[in-house]
């Protein structure tokens, strides 16, 4: 399923890139300008990863294990969005995310690609369409090694190691999430 999804995203990105190149070829000899559209840190996946750090449990000895240090990233995923204008009404939207990681999770770096185009149905109005696709940026939680003494050592979900779920079953609950892979934006602006 995941592989199929990746292929879909790849094809989509390739199509977007083709469109962008088509516009680019039509705009040869024109000077392209690139503008910074947005720069921010954090994302819904960053928030979700941080939420995993809430809680903890006691080991057999009674010493407290807090999840915080496992899910605390020293650097928060930064996203930079840029617009390269090809014609007065078209441009390529592109950008990247740095990703982030802590001891027990990783958000992969991401690449964003798309285009923006607009038409003017009349002099007072503008209809804009943008489509962007994101490659990468997935959140993947890592397992822990839990030593249960005589009962053995298991690869477990760090957060569920002290609960009643069988160690091997806890791995089913490792978080694996993808960012929003496709974003479609349609805007109509009327000036009066």
């Amino acid at each position, binding site marked *: 399923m995941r592989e199929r999804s990746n292929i879909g995203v790849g094809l989509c990105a390739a199509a977007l890139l083709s469109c962008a190149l088509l516009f680019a070829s039509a705009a040869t000899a024109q000077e392209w300008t690139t503008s910074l559209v947005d720069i921010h840190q954090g994302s819904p996946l960053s928030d979700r990863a941080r939420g995993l750090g809430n809680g903890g449990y006691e080991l057999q000895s009674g010493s407290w*294990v807090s999840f915080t240090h496992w899910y605390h990233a020293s650097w928060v995923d930064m996203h930079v969005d840029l617009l390269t204008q090809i014609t007065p009404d078209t441009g390529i939207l592109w950008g990247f995310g740095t990703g982030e990681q802590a001891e027990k999770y990783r958000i992969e770096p991401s690449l964003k690609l798309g285009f923006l185009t607009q038409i003017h149905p009349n002099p007072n109005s503008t209809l804009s369409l943008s489509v962007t696709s994101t490659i990468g940026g997935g959140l993947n939680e890592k397992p822990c090694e*839990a030593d249960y*003494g*005589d009962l053995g050592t298991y690869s*477990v979900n760090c957060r569920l190691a002290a*609960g009643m779920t069988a160690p091997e079953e806890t791995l089913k609950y490792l978080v694996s999430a993808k960012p929003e892979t496709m974003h479609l934006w349609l805007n109509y602006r009327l000036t009066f």
Partner: protein
Amino acid sequence: MNIISCPNSRPSRFPLNWGMRLGVAAAFAILWAPMASAQEVLSADETAALCHGGGSICVSARIPVARTTQTVQNWMSPDVGAAWAAGYKGKGVTITMVDDFSSSSRFYGNFGIGTQYQRHGEWTREEASMIAPAATIRSKDFSTGTAVSLARGLNVLNLSYGMYTTAGYSTSQIGWAPEESSIISYATKGSAIVSKAAGNDSVAVGGVTGGQQDYLDLALIGKPTAIFVGALSTNGTTANKAQLAWYSNYAGSDPAVQSHFLVVGVEGDKTGLYGTSFAAPIISGYAAIIGSKFTKATPVQITNDLLNTARTDTLVNYDPSVYGKGEASLSRALAPVAIH
């Protein structure tokens, strides 16, 4: 039926709830000879609760078990609530309650689901099923004397009774019934966890009281999967430490007992039920829950896990000769030693 090598050493099965222990002399008078003939003279009503077709296990159809009650009750350790997560509450483990399911003796109590009037075995069975709601609970009436069979998977045997007779014999002199023989054999081989109520005579496990000894206690000492369970008057916490209930037997000076002795809270003020009879089912339930988490663990491993994770910081003046390994902690028994 017991086949005894010495006529004077014939032990009687005796439920270990405190209320019944008060009537030692009377109870012995009832349990002696009539016990041996009970199988022959059962009323039709009683027979319905016993085993049929030569099988040693019977699940009474007349006595519903409170299997739907999956609420943490106020008499339970807070540990139980903390440990109950989604799904696994003893699933895949069989607890066999070897107890009284056929006598006419009943008494009142309330495990938080309303006052009931039940037999001793019905009470202990209900308690175990409330601690480990997903476990399979089987009832084995101890008056049959037939061997206890094991189910597929992990087995826990709950013994909330003792086998008393005149003090001074060695366990090898006792001609055990197939029932106790099988139980002792399982504890010896480590093929089932045996949770044994320590007794209510305020003596060390296996000690003499009124010229009698619990020979089942004595026979289980040193067996790898036997756990003696004493009663605390409350569930202990570090802020409110618990002490041994006044009636409970204690571990004593024998290191072999101390290393296999646990205590748990028996909050009779909330349930009306006192005695180490109601301590053993808690350990049976804990063992079932641990077994449902560690599905490949052996009875020996689970027994050791329970023993090695017992807490001593929740007890008043912890002393191994009183509390053995300490207060059983389900959450610690489920937790890793280390994680990275």
